[in-house]
């Protein structure tokens, strides 16, 4: 039973009336008039005034369907789930009411936990030791990963036709779905963690709050609900609706390249990641458990289409050719594939060339034997960086804030660093008693994260450009540079430690 006091202005004095409302069962309003000496006429006036006040509250208004949340996260990818788990883990923030909204279904990720498919899924990412340690010590979700599908490698060899550089660096290869699963499992452990992940729920509209002076944005959902957010976090990818809503500009350029990904088998298991820089862009072969591996191959839009459609018998040979042959031999082979030449012809041509030139075997000493047919996919590559990551009641995290060339495998790691810094800023804001949606609370996040991301985006962009040049003298200089750097251990470590 709830009650509220209503002051009724009367001729000379105010009558204090207490209104009791019974919730549940029959709705019944009882009016207690505290002043017993009032006349019947006054009583009638008072009752009428009360009814006038009551009527508006009895009409169902859209406001009633609106929930209020401290944090609304849009996007259930690794960045969004990571953020929710981090918020729910933090002793300073776990009391916040949070909701995560994902348009797709997370059922696949849950299924992955019970019965993982035998073959690798094709969305595989690399995690740096910093990210791994945050997931482990900072968040406690590392143990929930399927560890038999987590590959640790410790050496990278990058090369092109003219030079080679190798460095020791620890990193992990893991499927995106594996990370999602681990985070969902972690959320299930946390109080109020799991119930507030709403999947298969699309954002239909984000609008400004018009009523009652509140400036909380309202997120309208496909399930008919609306959520008002103290802080709306966009983890909703490159085309972020949250970023568009906040009118934050994102600047950058398309690379006119597509990334082709595929899961493959190689002839012998390895702990080494290889990356060859071709004039079209880098081709990386990253090891997975056993003799499995994954590739990321940056190609022109036309070539990417051709290679995605190439027969699955040919594709492994094409990868071998690209890894081992001199890059000026490749256009001829691409042309054969494009013209739908006989499969055996193409394979014979590649084999003949490989037998002839074994010079690059010293760099890539493995052989790709098979491609999992359904694993091939392509996506456009671009560099973009939002002008800022915050606006009043808005924060952007991960791809919504920046997209990066995949050549250094930094995508998710930047997203993780964003999450870590955002959570740090919110923790600080909470001990300062700030409204976590105000720019005062969010500014430290952008001021620390933006310059660091900008440097990383720039470095990867320059790598792409430097290796995209195909002109004899420049190639020779670049090769010389790589070989020189390779022999200078100290300088090399200095660079690696930056990552």
């Amino acid at each position, binding site marked *: 039973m709830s009650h509220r006091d209503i002051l009724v202005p009367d001729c000379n004095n105010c009558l204090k009336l207490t209104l009791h409302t019974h919730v549940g069962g029959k709705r019944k309003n009882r009016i207690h008039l505290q002043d017993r000496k009032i006349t019947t006429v006054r009583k009638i006036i008072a009752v009428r005034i009360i009814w006038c006040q009551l009527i508006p509250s009895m009409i169902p208004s859209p406001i009633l369907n609106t929930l*209020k949340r401290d944090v609304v996260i849009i996007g259930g990818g690794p960045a969004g789930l990571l953020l929710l788990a981090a918020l729910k883990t933090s*002793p300073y923030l776990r*009391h916040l009411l949070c909701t995560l909204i994902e348009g797709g279904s997370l059922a696949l990720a849950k299924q992955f936990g019970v019965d993982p498919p035998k073959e690798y899924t094709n969305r595989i990412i690399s995690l740096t030791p910093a990210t791994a340690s945050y997931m482990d010590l900072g968040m406690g979700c590392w143990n929930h990963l399927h560890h038999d599908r987590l590959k640790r490698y410790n050496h990278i060899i990058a090369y092109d036709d003219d030079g080679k550089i190798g460095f020791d660096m620890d990193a992990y290869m893991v499927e995106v779905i594996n990370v999602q699963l681990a985070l969902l499992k972690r959320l299930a452990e946390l109080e109020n963690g799991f119930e507030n992940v709403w999947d298969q729920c699309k954002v239909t509209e984000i609008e400004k709050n018009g009523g*009652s*002076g*509140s*400036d909380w944005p309202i997120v309208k959902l496909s399930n008919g609900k609306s959520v008002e957010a*103290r802080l709306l976090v966009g983890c909703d990818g490159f085309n972020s609706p949250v970023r568009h809503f906040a009118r934050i500009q994102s600047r950058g350029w398309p690379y006119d390249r597509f990334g082709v990904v595929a899961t493959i088998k190689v002839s012998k298991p390895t702990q080494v990641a290889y990356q060859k820089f071709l004039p079209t862009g880098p081709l990386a072969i990253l090891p997975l458990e056993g003799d499995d591996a994954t590739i990321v191959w940056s190609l022109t839009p036309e070539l990417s289409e051709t290679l995605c459609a190439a027969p699955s018998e040919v594709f492994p040979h094409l990868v071998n050719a690209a890894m081992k042959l001199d890059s000026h031999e490749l256009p001829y082979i691409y042309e054969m594939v494009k013209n739908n030449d006989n499969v055996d012809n193409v394979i014979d041509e590649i084999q003949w060339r490989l037998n002839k030139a074994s010079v690059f075997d010293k760099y890539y000493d493995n052989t790709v034997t098979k491609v999992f047919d359904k694993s091939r996919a392509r996506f456009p590559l671009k560099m973009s960086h939002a002008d800022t990551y915050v606006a009043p009641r808005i924060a952007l995290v991960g791809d919504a804030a920046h997209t990066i060339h995949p050549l250094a495998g930094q995508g998710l790691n930047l997203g993780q660093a964003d999450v870590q810094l955002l959570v740090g800023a919110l923790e600080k804001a*909470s*001990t*300062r*008693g*700030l*409204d976590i949606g*105000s*720019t*005062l609370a969010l500014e430290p996040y952008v001021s620390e994260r933006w310059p660091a991301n900008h440097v990383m985006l720039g470095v990867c962009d320059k790598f792409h450009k430097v290796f995209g040049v195909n002109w004899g003298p420049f190639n020779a200089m670049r090769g010389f540079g790589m070989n020189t750097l390779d022999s200078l251990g100290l300088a090399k470590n200095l660079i690696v430690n930056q990552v």
Partner: protein
Amino acid sequence: MKSITTFLKRCISTGFRRWHSTGKLTSTSPEELAHFNALASSWWDVNGPQRILHKMNLLRMDFIYSTIREHLKLNPPDCPEEDKVYIPPYSVDLLPEPIKRQIVWEQDMRRDEILSQKKLKVLDVGCGGGILSESMARSSFVDDVMGIDLSSEVLQAAKIHQQKDPMLSENNGKLDYQLTAIEDLPKSETYDIITMFEMLEHVDYPSKVLTEGLQRLNVGGWLFLSTINRDFVSWFTTIFMGEHVLRIVPVGTHTLEKYINQQEIRDWISEDPQRLRSYEVVDTKGTVYLPAYGWKFTSNPNVGNYFMALRRVK
């Protein structure tokens, strides 16, 4: 040159006398009131004329939070031996790194635990638009906040802004504002935290206000204040640069002769034996505003702006 002479004159002639003067109770002059009334509308615009105050609030909250946190009693007298947190009788920095980390971690956990159970009662004197009051009301260790001010317009701004956050407007009673002077509050009402930030330099009789505040502290309660030393640096930064050159704050916000040196407050506490027994100046920190960065603590509390923490010990 003329302004420097005026500065010196003001510095010497009026400050001390005013500090010791008795007479009418605490109040602020009509000019001061009119000035703050005019500021009401832009008070909550964090990018507006009060941005510097919003930025200062971050440091205020850091000061309050860390002071209270550091002075918690980690092992209460009735605490059983096995539950006690180890507090080495010397600096933890002397211990090996892993041991030090373990000790500090245990202490931090205990501090969090004690702090989370606290339900402190706060009085924010000169709350203005409620920047500090709202922050205090959102803090987990605070149960009740009363903000008082003499300007009805800024209080109106505070109340309107309070309604915007359901955390403050729906938790009935956690945050209240009242148009009153501190001396008009009943003496029986006592508080765990009383704050007087950027306020003593705006009243006519600061020692009176301070006395009124100290009298309303619970034993173990804190009085946090901030004001400005009456020196050349303060005049140069807060009046000359702040108001006239950079126009960070509106002209007329400050009056030099109303500034108070931190040593004057310390002397005032120790000049009365009764006061000296009951109250203790626990900490004073100098603060400075760096454009494009914000506020920062300095190592010298005797120059420019400063924060001070006083505690009722008995």
